[in-house]
Every structure is written in C-alpha cells, then in structure tokens.
C-alpha cells in the first residue's frame, strides 16, 4: 500500500446513465415544451443527478488543476452507429461544466492520458479523479438487461469495495462477469483500484440505489492525509 502521506487526490464516483446529462437524456427535445406539467416521476433520476452534481462540486472545491475521468470506452456497437465519444466522458464533461470546472480534463480511456502514473508512482499533485460507472443493469425483469440473479451479489461486492476503499478488490473485479451483467462501471472501477494510493482513502457513500433496474452509486473518496 502506498503511504497515505503521499496521497493527495480526491475521487468521486457517479452513475453513467444518459439521464445524468438531462431529464430526458437527449438534448434535442426541449423539456416542458408541452402544455401539461410533467408528472412527479417524469425525471426519475433528478435526485441522483443533483447528488452527483453536489459530489462533483465537492471534487472541484479542492481546486484541482486537472480532473482525470475514469470511464468505460465507447460501446463498440454505438461506435459502429457513429457515436464515438464514450458516454462516461459526456456525463463527466456535463457534470464538470455544471460544477464550474474550467481546468484540464483528461479522459482515462484514451491514449491522451499520458500522465497516467505507473505502479509505485504517485498521482500528480493537483489531480482530481472522477469515476463514471454503474453496477449491473440486470436487476429485475423490467431492467434494461432483464433479470440475472448474479447481479445482486456482484453489485454488493463492488459496493463493499467502494465503501472500504479496497483497491485490491476493485482492481480484481471480473471484467467478463461485469460484461455479462451489463455492469458498465467495471473498467472504471478497476482503473480506480489500480491508481497509486487508492487504498489510502476513506469513503462517503452519498447514494446507492437501483431505481431503474441499474445499480447506481455516488461515492466521495476524500484523501486520508
């Protein structure tokens, strides 16, 4: 484990649902354009989005000069349909912009992340880490990926690792089981676990829930030092 004295980065975990960028998840439609008032649950992730924005504001409040975004690469099927920017990147940029962050944004899925520290090397001073990812999308018969009973144990293990700042457990998450369970966050959680000093944090879980059949978390990792 890296000594806590050398660790100076904070991290935040937020969901990667398209609904995180706006109430309808697509920008071309103007909200409240209709005559009728939207029903109370028309924006089912409104509270989640607000909590995520609070967490990102907290990350930004430490005045990092750069934010490293850890997210899954763009879905290959969506790339084939012409959408090449990873969903997680768009969610991150939207939240960072809403939080007023104007510094450098480095995307952890791309080769641009040349500043990625190797094992034993510290994350550079002035870095914030924004992890965009979810647990399984197979947590019920109405879930996007229908029901897979394995989802519950899997998500529980991810949540425990996030709560415990268990870098070993995060970096050992099974990517193939994660893919089977449509757990879009697994690559990002593995990357978080592999960051030098990951274990030298404490965790504050602001939200854990699966309102749409997908497991979401909002977690803050203040550095312990």
């Amino acid at each position: 484990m890296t000594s806590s004295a050398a660790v100076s980065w904070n991290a935040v975990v937020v969901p990667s649902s398209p609904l995180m960028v706006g109430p309808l998840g697509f920008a071309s439609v103007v909200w409240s354009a209709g005559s009728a008032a939207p029903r109370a649950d028309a924006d089912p992730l409104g509270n989640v989005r607000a909590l995520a924005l609070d967490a990102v504001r907290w990350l930004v409040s430490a005045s990092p000069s750069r934010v490293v975004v850890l997210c899954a690469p763009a879905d290959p099927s969506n790339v084939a349909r012409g959408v090449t920017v990873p969903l997680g990147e768009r969610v991150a940029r939207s939240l960072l912009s809403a939080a007023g962050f104007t510094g450098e944004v480095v995307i952890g899925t791309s080769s641009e992340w040349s500043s990625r520290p190797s094992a034993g090397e510290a994350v550079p001073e002035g870095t914030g880490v924004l992890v965009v990812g979810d647990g399984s999308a197979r947590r019920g018969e109405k879930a996007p990926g229908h029901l897979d009973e394995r989802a519950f144990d899997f998500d529980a293990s991810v949540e425990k690792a996030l709560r415990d700042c268990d870098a070993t457990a995060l970096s050992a998450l099974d990517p193939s089981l994660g893919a089977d369970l449509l757990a879009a966050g697994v690559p990002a959680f593995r990357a978080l676990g592999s960051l030098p000093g990951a274990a030298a944090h404490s965790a504050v879980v602001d939200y854990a829930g699966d309102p749409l059949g997908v497991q979401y978390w909002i977690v803050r990792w203040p550095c312990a030092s």
Partner: protein
Amino acid sequence: MTLRLGRQSFSDDASLMMAIVNRTPDSFYDKGATWAEDRAFDRVAQVVDQGAEIVDIGGIKAAPGVEIDAAEEISRVGSFVGRVRSSYPSLVISVDTWRAEVGRVVCSEGADLLNDAWGGADPELVDVAAEFDAAIICTHTGGVTPRTRPHRIEYADVVASAIADTTAYAERALAAGVARESIVIDPAHDFGKNTAHSLEVTRRLSEMVDTGWPVLVSLSNKDFVGESLDLPVGERLIGTLAATAFCAQAGARIYRVHEVVETRQVVDMVATIMGSRQPARVTRGLA
C-alpha cells in the same frame, strides 16, 4: 410499385392493415388473451371481418422473458397457420419470426410473408422466403440481439442507420432470390431505439419512403407513445392513431396494428385529405 405478398397483389395506392394475432401467453398488449388456439382463431375471424388484409401471427413476445426454442415456437404457430390457411384461402398470412427453421415450417403451412422483427438475426431467413416465393419484412434494430431491450443505444443518425440497414437487408433478400415486389422495409419503432429515436424515425419517415421500398410501420400501443403522453398500455390508442396519421401522410403502406377499424379510418381519412382516395359520398352543398 405493386406489392405482392405471397398469393395476393396490391396496387401501389393501397394501404394495408396487418392485424396482430398473438399465440403467446405474455405479449405486452393483450397479455395472453389469444394464447389458447381457439381464441387466436376467433381473433383472426374478427380482424378479417374488420377488413384486415393481413394477419401477423406471432409465437414469441418481443420483450425479454422465458426462452422459447424453435420447437416450442413451431408448436405455437406451425399448425395454426395451416388451420387459418384452410379457413381463409385468400387471406395474407404473415408470421412474426426471426428463425429460418420456423419460417420453413410456416411457409409450408401456407404463410405468405415472413415478418423478421429482429432485422436479419438469422441470415438464412431470406433463403426460406426465396424458396417459398414468400414476401419478407426487413426491419431495423441497430444490430441488437433478439428479445433484448435497448440500453444506452446511440446513433449518430438513427434514420440514416435505419435506411442503410433496411435497404441493405432488402438487397440481401433480393440477391437471395426474393421477388423485388415482395420486399418491405420497416424502421421498427422501439426496437433498438429509445423514445427519442422512435420519434425521429416517425418525424422523418418520408426519407424511408423515398428509398422506393414499401414501408411498414408498427406503432401500435408502443412505449414511445406511452412515454410521449405519459400513458400506460391500454390507454395509448389515440396517440397511436396520431402517429399513424403522420406516417400515412409520409407514405407508409402497411400498418401493423392491434386496432384495425380505428387505424383504417385514420389512414383512409389521411388519404382522402391528400387526394389519393375519393370520399365515400359527396353531396354536401352540392344538391
């Protein structure tokens, strides 16, 4: 272009009602109302009486659920197609299946049309259509696996994708030997699409019509209507009919529907407004 669906041909200004007949215990709209074979047969009689030109018989609900293998699907729809054929020699019988193995059985039982709602997931389905001189519906799903829900699916341009995929599928059917006049394309609302995507393919349906291939639309009571109007299944008829009118103006040829009478009235009214259909009676102010 004249449309030929198995034993029947239709002129290029004809709009056709394709009535949904589910041999399923769990489809989203009727929830098993015609699961029993006799109930399904009664449904056929009803929609024929209502003027449907086509019945679309399906043995597997579209949403995820209990896996139905080909043998079970055949047991649900195979002999039933034969029974309908015996009673209605001139009715166009469509079967909603993605499996070539099932397609072969139903065509031998007298089906005219294979409605491949999952966009060519089984590449041999076109060969079956060609072998039996059946027609085929080429749908767009964005490449998703059959019986999966769209999850964070994205398109740079959903209409361009729908046109590219359905016309490529149509060309593949043509190359396999399906008659040109027996190939139909369908943007497949809500299949591999979220509500924004389904609304966009509706808004821009004329671009699909402009390809020259006859266009089928399957709008009936779907979730994009439900999300647009905040209405549950069972209260989406009016929204469905509004979308139907829009597609009729854009030039759709076939309407896959739960409600035949209401859809027919809307499509006829639009055609009358557009001048491609004469009013049934014109005496008002003219006596």
